[in-house]
């Protein structure tokens, strides 16, 4: 890499770090149990806003995988979700009323907390509607994955976000607090994803799936990115650049084999398309705090006048990670 590019990226990284430190001042600790984090613990980082309905299952799912500690940022919820999580002994909670859009969609706050608490730990950064699936996740805890990555001298683990949707209208998939969202939203698009290489950051830019097929078929370049690198052996010098799509230093983005081989990778099951979605879309389109002023949500709202059916005859019904592996949506790579 050229010295100039290298310097430019370094400066960019420093700038994000500085910015995170500034934005960190917007955070107030509600419940700080970080003293109980042991050196080998795996920590989950998450920002949420009015997600009380999703939190119980979310916590249960990741506790079952073996996450040891949860660090949450509550961005101005008024639905009691914060109270719900702050009582648990493995949760630390911060809150802020700062603007989501002006903190790089929550990333600044999380970067600040990661600097403070994740250094030397495996850190999993996900949204409340993202559920991490990795090879052998039904038989091996997340600690096994972390140990194996560490032994293989791998610092970051790549995934693709897989949008899950119900069969039938989205509004008919009624989600109740504590339920497994994939009881209803258990269909996905198996093979319509397109990939581009980002030359500067060296990450892959993956788009497609049902969102491109149904909502962005006339403007595919605006379709949301699906590549995510949520699981990283954190170091104080790291920072996410845009959501968890890519990181700096950019070597962390090389989660893919470049000579034909497959590296090990997973999937983030995205439980977006449930009945709570249409209400949310209206709200977020109005709030315009999300990426590009909620452009994505606006296009759902215009499409959503008539509740869409996302399901099609080529949709696949979710079974387990082995199915995703066989379809080529994730890979065991060298892990056996």
């Amino acid at each position: 890499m050229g010295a100039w590019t290298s310097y430019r990226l370094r400066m960019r990284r420093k700038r994000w770090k500085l910015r995170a430190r500034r934005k960190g001042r917007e955070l107030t600790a509600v419940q700080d149990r970080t003293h109980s984090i042991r050196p080998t613990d795996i920590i989950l980082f998450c920002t949420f806003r009015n997600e009380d309905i999703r939190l119980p299952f979310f916590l249960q799912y990741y506790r079952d995988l073996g996450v040891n500690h949860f660090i949450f940022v509550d961005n101005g919820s008024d639905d009691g979700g914060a109270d719900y999580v702050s009582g648990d002994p493995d949760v630390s909670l911060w809150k802020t009323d700062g603007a989501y859009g002006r903190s790089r969609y929550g990333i600044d706050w999380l970067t600040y907390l990661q600097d403070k608490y994740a250094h030397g730990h495996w850190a999993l950064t996900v949204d409340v509607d993202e559920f991490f699936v990795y090879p052998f996740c039904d038989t091996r805890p997340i600690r096994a994955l972390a140990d194996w990555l560490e032994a293989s001298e791998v610092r970051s683990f790549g995934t693709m976000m897989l949008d899950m949707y119900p069969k039938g209208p989205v509004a008919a998939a009624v989600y109740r607090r504590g339920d497994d969202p994939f009881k209803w939203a258990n269909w996905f698009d198996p093979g319509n994803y397109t990939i581009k290489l980002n030359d500067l950051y060296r990450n892959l830019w993956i788009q497609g799936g049902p969102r491109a097929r149904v909502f962005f078929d006339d403007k595919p370049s605006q379709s949301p990115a699906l590549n995510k690198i949520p699981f990283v052996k954190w170091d104080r010098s790291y920072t996410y650049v845009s959501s968890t799509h890519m990181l700096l230093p950019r070597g962390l983005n090389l989660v893919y084999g470049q000579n034909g081989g497959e590296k090990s990778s997973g999937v983030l099951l995205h439980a977006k398309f449930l009945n709570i979605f249409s209400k949310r879309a209206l709200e977020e389109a109005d709030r315009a705090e999300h990426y590009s002023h909620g452009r994505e949500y606006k296009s759902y709202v215009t499409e959503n006048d008539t509740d869409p059916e996302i399901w099609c005859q080529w949709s696949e019904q979710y079974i387990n990670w082995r199915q995703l592996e066989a379809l080529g949506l994730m890979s065991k790579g060298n892990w056996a």
Partner: protein
Amino acid sequence: MTFGVVMLVHAEFDRAEQVIRHWVGGGCPVVVHVDSNVDVDAYGGFARSLADLETVQFCQRFRCEWGMWGLVEATQAASEMMLRNFPEVSHVFLASGSCLPLRPVSELRAFLSNRPKTDFIESATTADVPWTVGGLDRERFTLRFPFSWKSRRKLFDRYVRLQQVLRVKRRIPAGLVPHMGSQWWCLTRHTLGAILNDPKRRTYDRYFRRVWIPDESYFQTLARLHAKRIQSRSLTLSKFDFQGKPHIFYNDHAEILRRSECFVARKIWPNAGLLYRVFPRQPDSQLTDAKPNTGKVDRIFGRALERRTRGRPGLYMQSRFPNVARANGITAVPFSVMQGFDCLFPNFEKWLSGQTGAQVHGHIYAKDKAHFAGDAPIFSGALSDSAVLRDYNAAGFLTNLVWNARDTHQCIMFGPDDTQSIRWLLAHDTNARVWVITGAWSIPLFLSGKPAGKVRAEAARLQRIEHKLLKVLRAPDAHARIQICTLADFLENPRAILQEVVDEIAGHKAKEVSTLPEMADLTGLAEFLQELKNQGMHPFLTGDILADAEKRPPPTSEPKSYVVGHK
């Protein structure tokens, strides 16, 4: 008569203790070496936890770093202690803290006492077996390696480079033939004693101190000098990945470990509670003589290696994105692209799929939308027929299509009016079979009934585009299977070319073409083309179509005189 276990431990002391208790419970004395990097408290705690066992002893501690001499020193010290303090020991088994006995200790003892003079040590000459990772196989015996590969990689690499440039070559001590193999062995008292008490041991030690990864070559080489009978295999099941690092066993491996009938396996993940609960399995009167059989384990880890190094051709995903020029094939399986056929034969797609059983699409790169087979709005993998989505990544659309439907041969119609950005892919993908009838675009123009003067510009445009495609297809680095013929040549003998197409797609299942698809009525085409020429637009890609060509009856399939046999 029994065997003793030399165990090298550096972490996970709880599990090590558990395994030591298995060995001792089976009647084996154990000498433990603990890495000197382990701090005093941890060491003390570990030693205390085993204080109740009389036949467990701790030897002098050395600093053990991967690939360095300390590991051999530790093994030597522990082995000496074993031979000195436990005279009843006839074999010494070298194990690590993350080894787990799978079969009862009694079965291993019976196995060894039936083979009292046999040494089990994997030992192959470097000259014959290119095993190693990183290219340093012969050189690890002829260069010096004072720096750790793990912690001082840069210095290691530079020092190796320097020696290579200066052509330094160490002399291997007389009488030694370098051998290598698994670090985990089981030697007889006789062989191990002879190695440790060799009068030239100081010379050998001095030499191996600077060899790279001596723990894989010291005993392996010296055993060849002293052993009576070597079985070149390890009794410890241990698989290595492409980086040369051991694969780890988890709870879900319990079944294949049990079936492997190996005596000991490594490495076991320390938190694999199930494995530590079920192994070593209970003595079983019938199976005591079972031979280790690692077939299934080998297959699983062999597949992992294949996946990591070659991957699934034609798959593009978040953890496989090969540089197209270096990948093994761009798409997953062979597919066919046909240009011009559907202009000549209105029902060509239906005919072709009937003849070959392949899935025949229309123009999936058409301007308006992707015309999938049967005019479906959506295709395998949930591919949308939206032209905008498709053209956003046209090559990706094709690799997806072929990947999603890789169990059937895919045929697509193509033409100069379609999205052309997949040209490069078509020419370079070894899986692509491209058939072009050049100039066939003139037929729809002719059939439209418009005068030549009106369609002149359109004809020129189509010809220009097709000409560009032909240029790419005729490039010297175009590796697809490409067949190009002019419209005139095709009309000479359509049956022969269609037969070739069917043979190519259906392979050995191909039958002789019985009925040809119905051809469009071309009466007057020659005049139409002449009129285009008169307007100044030469349709040079059509070839020379004679005025009577279109009226000629299709030639019968009688064998030509120079063909010796025919189908």
